[in-house]
């Protein structure tokens, strides 16, 4: 279980995250919602070790992992799918996937790879092509597939569905659910709140770096403020 307590992230004198606390439980999907600039990505980056939080703590199964270097966190099973894809452009698609599995145990490697290819056949087709030449959505698939390769225990995902066609969003979110069901803890930032809520267990809404709502996913849908803030007026009308 990943526990984030009173996390603060500052960039110079910009306070991007101001005391965020939330839990990620194995087998559960925690969905983070929030407007542009609310501090979602900053929270995830701080957990993954890419930004140093100025205050607060992160615990993994009771161990303090605050401010641990990113590569050490990966070895403990905490993996981040970063915002904006960040594939290794000049390397081939296959090499990107191999890097995803850099720390993973070798036994399950081939099996995982096969599953990734099954999920995104285009990645198999383009295995020897440079990752940077893929289309935006294909790169997003690669980023997701790459994270799967590491066989994580806790997965942090920053907008995994960005730029993906609706069918693919469905399959990715289904996969997320499936992973959660297999015991992985998932912390997911997702702007496509509507689809995200379908697979989430917990919902946390962040505004201006603070948690403004947190509750069970089912309740969130029936909560007017959340609806209005993150699903738009249309969602209210629909109800």
């Amino acid at each position, binding site marked *: 279980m990943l526990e984030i307590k009173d996390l603060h992230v500052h960039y110079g004198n910009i306070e991007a995250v101001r005391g965020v606390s939330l839990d990620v439980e194995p087998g559960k999907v925690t969905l983070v919602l929030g407007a542009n600039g609310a501090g979602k990505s900053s929270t995830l980056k701080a957990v993954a070790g890419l930004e140093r939080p100025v205050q607060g703590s992160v615990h993994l199964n009771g161990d303090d992992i605050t401010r641990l*270097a990113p590569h050490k966190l990966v070895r403990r099973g905490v993996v981040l799918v970063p915002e904006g894809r960040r594939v290794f452009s000049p390397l081939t698609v296959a090499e990107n996937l191999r890097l995803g599995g850099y720390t993973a145990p070798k036994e399950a490697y081939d099996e995982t790879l096969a599953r990734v290819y099954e999920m995104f056949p285009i990645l198999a087709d383009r295995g020897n092509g440079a*990752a940077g030449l893929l289309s935006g959505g294909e790169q997003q698939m690669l980023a997701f597939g790459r994270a799967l390769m590491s066989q994580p225990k806790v997965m942090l995902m920053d907008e995994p569905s960005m730029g993906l066609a609706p069918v693919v969003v469905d399959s990715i979110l289904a996969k997320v659910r499936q992973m959660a069901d297999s015991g992985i803890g998932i912390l997911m930032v997702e702007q496509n709140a509507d689809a995200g809520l379908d697979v989430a267990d917990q919902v946390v809404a962040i505004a201006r770096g603070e948690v403004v709502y947190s509750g069970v996913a089912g309740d969130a849908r029936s909560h007017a403020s959340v609806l209005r803030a993150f699903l738009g007026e249309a969602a209210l009308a629909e109800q």
Partner: protein
Amino acid sequence: MQDLLSVVTLGSIYLLFALGMSLTWGTIDILNFGHGAIFMFSSFTAYLVLQQTELGLPLIMLIGLIVGALMSLLIQVLAFEQIIKRAKDKRAAEMQILIGGIGVAIIPLAIAQHYTKSNPFGFSKSTFKVNTWTMGDLRITNIAALSIVVAVVLWVSAAVWLRRSRQGLALRSIGVDAETAALMGIDRRKMALATMAVAGGMAGLSGVLFTFGLGAITPESGDTLLVKAFACIILGGVGSMRGVAFGAFFLAAAETVVLTQTSGSWVEAVSFGLIFLVLLVRPSGVFGRAEVRRT
């Protein structure tokens, strides 16, 4: 024939020197302009040690290797790591590293110049004697043969390791995007240090072999080689192991041909002119891959 042998010998020295530079540049994106100083100073250290005691070839090579690796590590920790930590973006870091390397290189150079008063130094005190083997018309010294073997072995192992091994791949990913590489679980610092050490070791080794082969070098020898190595790597295509070997032997051949067939004072004009022409035809070097870009 004898000329061909000269080309191979000279080319393998260029290769040995350029290999380390190419390794750090092509993988972790560090174009180390202190490489020439490492080369020279390793040899210089061996020379200083030889003033105290007599040593054979293996020990001298070991000294070169260790001093080179240590210097390279030191530069990485004290200069390059700090630059990367502070730089705003990758391109700015590249420039700073370039200049930082040039600055750092002045330090060992000044020390060596101070002690030698810029006179050449060599290993005449070594117990190892350079012999010449004759096969028919061909003559080759044992040290030239050794240089060729060392260069080829190191080159092949570096190339294979980079292409095939897990760490090789990890190393290349660091050069592309160090932060994301860390997110893959790669310890970028350790990998970078290891690479720098290996590259420095190669520079040190080539310094020692080069000094043996020529009888003597001067403190400024490293600088001359630096420009040539830069040319070799660019010519072959940055990041390509085949490329650096091609570049090294191409340059050696061009120089030898010019030096022996025409007036030697045109050597640079012709060899760099050739490089210029090759670049017009292959803008990313002979074996280099074009930058991956799309809209």
